[in-house]
């Protein structure tokens, strides 16, 4: 018996030493690439992968998995190298007390290069996110494929891309580019819903400056080729731009507050609040359709607390997209912006709005469309850039969307643009028009030139007759009543009624249900 008691004591002792050993092991791995590499990371103005996760998630909510995973490379002297966590941290946590899955590549460990086990950790947390129906956030900071691991590294990327596609439209997927993300690696963010970039830190490209120089003789810096600004303004790859990592995390948290956790739920409602008292909505829009104004002021005059969370602010600013709340519920806004390019639709703006509409539709977010556009942008460059197939995206997205869809025509609604901007004909649920709305095949100037060509050219004073005819056309067609007479517009409303009308439309659309023909999936023009 005595012996047994002794054994128990020694067992207790050994358990304690085991715990101490575990703590020591954890501390070792959590150092990532070591002090020197961490110092280097800080010098680049970057936080470490662990610091990023802790800064983004709720305090004390992060739980890590696969801490002790080791790489499996056997060639080029890799077998003797230790790569802590194989260069990536995965885990679960909460943001605003709601669960999320997260991975963060650790640049201090072998440059965050992606080997087989590194990829396996990422796919493990992706599988979790999809199974648990919670958002996935991926922080990218990696030199690319781990060349020593050859085709296994490529396989890893492929497994990630496949899961990105599988999860698309089921759970929100957010990519945060906080370092290099080059070559094949760029395609994971490209497949996700929202991409965040930070000035001087994010770098995304398929082929880097050195290869471009050696092959093509073109010299360009990394920042000019694929920096944050390039992707936020020119390519449209990035949805959110910020000047620091902490600002970026605030943006992510804000986004998370607007969207539902998965496609089976709705975004969490907030306490309803009226719009701020500011400029009267009637005073924002000039009566002359040729004079611009900022359509975001109209959005803010109908949203709770006059808050509007804009997406892709600098890319194709001739269309405005983003989230706002109305009586506490998230609403997606799509609005032509007369301040830029007169609010025309073109290749980029169609692409931008088309994808956003599909996002809203996939995640049960009602869409409010504010319309004021002269049509599609004319030009050889637009035609040759494929404005036909890009422009078709917005038609497709609106037609396909089954969430509640409300349109308010503020002023111009001409030609193809009128049809594209969630018209009755694409199954808008409610179409309202202000008395300033002009629903016509084209603007009065262009129409008069065609309809009255003979009268104008044969007149003694063509310019005078032209102006007369423009006025005649304006009187007859440049109003909402012709379309209202056909029932294409449900009601002509006063500008100050806008919020109330949209809210009521949303309320009666709550249980919207439509039967669509059975299909595997459509074939959108992308």
């Amino acid at each position, binding site marked *: 018996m005595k012996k047994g008691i002794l054994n128990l004591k020694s067992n207790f002792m050994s358990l304690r030493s085991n715990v101490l050993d575990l703590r020591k092991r954890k501390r070792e791995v959590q150092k990532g690439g070591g002090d020197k590499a961490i110092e280097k990371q800080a010098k680049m103005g970057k936080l470490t992968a662990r610091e990023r996760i802790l800064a983004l998630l709720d305090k004390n909510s992060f739980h890590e998995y696969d801490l002790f995973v080791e790489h499996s490379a056997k060639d080029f002297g890799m077998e003797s190298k230790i790569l802590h966590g194989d260069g990536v941290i995965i885990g679960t946590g909460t943001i605003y007390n709601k669960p999320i899955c997260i991975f963060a590549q650790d640049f201090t460990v072998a440059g965050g290069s992606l080997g087989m086990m590194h990829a396996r950790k990422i796919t493990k947390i992706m599988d979790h996110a999809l199974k648990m129906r919670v958002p996935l956030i991926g922080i990218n900071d990696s030199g690319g494929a781990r060349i020593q691991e050859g085709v296994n590294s490529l396989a890893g990327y492929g497994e990630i891309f496949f899961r990105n596609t599988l999860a698309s439209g089921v759970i929100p997927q957010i990519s945060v580019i906080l370092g290099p993300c080059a070559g094949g690696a760029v395609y994971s963010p490209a497949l996700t819903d929202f991409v965040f970039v930070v000035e001087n830190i994010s770098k995304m490209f398929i082929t880097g400056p050195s290869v471009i120089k050696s*092959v*093509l*003789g*073109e010299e360009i810096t990394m920042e000019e080729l694929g920096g944050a600004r390039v992707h936020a*303004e*020119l390519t449209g790859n990035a949805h959110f731009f910020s000047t620091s990592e902490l600002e970026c995390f605030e943006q992510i948290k804000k986004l998370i507050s607007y969207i539902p956790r998965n496609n089976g739920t709705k975004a969490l409602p907030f306490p309803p609040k009226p719009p701020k008292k500011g400029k009267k909505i009637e005073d924002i829009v000039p009566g002359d*359709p*040729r*004079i*611009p104004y900022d359509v975001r002021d109209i959005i803010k005059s109908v949203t709770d607390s006059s808050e509007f969370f804009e997406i892709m*602010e*600098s890319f*194709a*600013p*001739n269309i405005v997209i983003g989230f706002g709340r109305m009586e506490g519920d998230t609403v997606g806004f799509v609005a032509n912006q*007369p*301040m*830029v*390019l*007169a*609010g*025309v639709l073109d290749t*980029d703006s169609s692409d931008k709005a088309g994808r956003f509409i599909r996002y809203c539709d996939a995640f049960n977010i009602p869409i409010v469309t504010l319309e004021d556009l*002269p*049509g599609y*942008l*004319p*030009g*050889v*460059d637009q035609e*040759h850039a494929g404005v036909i197939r890009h422009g078709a995206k917005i038609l497709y997205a609106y037609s396909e969307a089954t969430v509640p869809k409300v349109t308010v025509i503020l002023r111009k609604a*001409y*030609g193809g643009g009128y049809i594209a901007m969630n018209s009755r004909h694409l199954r808008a649920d409610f179409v309202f028009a202000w008395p300033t709305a002009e629903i016509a095949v*084209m*603007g*009065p*100037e*262009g129409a008069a*030139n065609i309809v009255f060509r003979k009268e104008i050219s044969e007149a003694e004073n063509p310019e005078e007759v032209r102006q007369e005819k423009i006025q005649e056309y304006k009187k007859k067609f440049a109003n909402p009543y012709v379309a209202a007479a056909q029932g294409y517009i449900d009601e002509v409303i006063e500008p100050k009624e806008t919020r109330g009308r949209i809210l009521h439309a949303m309320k009666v659309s709550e249980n919207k249900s439509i039967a669509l023909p059975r299909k595997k999936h459509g074939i959108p023009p992308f």
Partner: protein
Amino acid sequence: MTKEKKELKSLVVQGTVYQTNLTWKFENRVKWETPNPNYIYSFIPGTVIDIFVKPKEKVKEGETLLLLEAMKMQNQVRMPFDGQIVKIHIKKDQVIPKKYLMLEIKPLKLK
């Protein structure tokens, strides 16, 4: 978009002149020019490996004029029609950008 007040520009869409701001992309768009068949431009940036013709030389349609190496490929630039070389704007081993005027030619009936 910047908050600062910029002077508005004009944009014409279907006969109507709108006051608005223009984007960088729009202002820097490439203006269309009708291509001149007598000018041969590089279709890709690269290095001129070899030039097989001289000024005033008569060349038949389909004959190789020069080799332009780009993306590890040696691309043969061929004569688009029967004609004569007017002027050569490139040298051997020269690295040239895309849309660089390489040769001027003119059509000529060859016996």
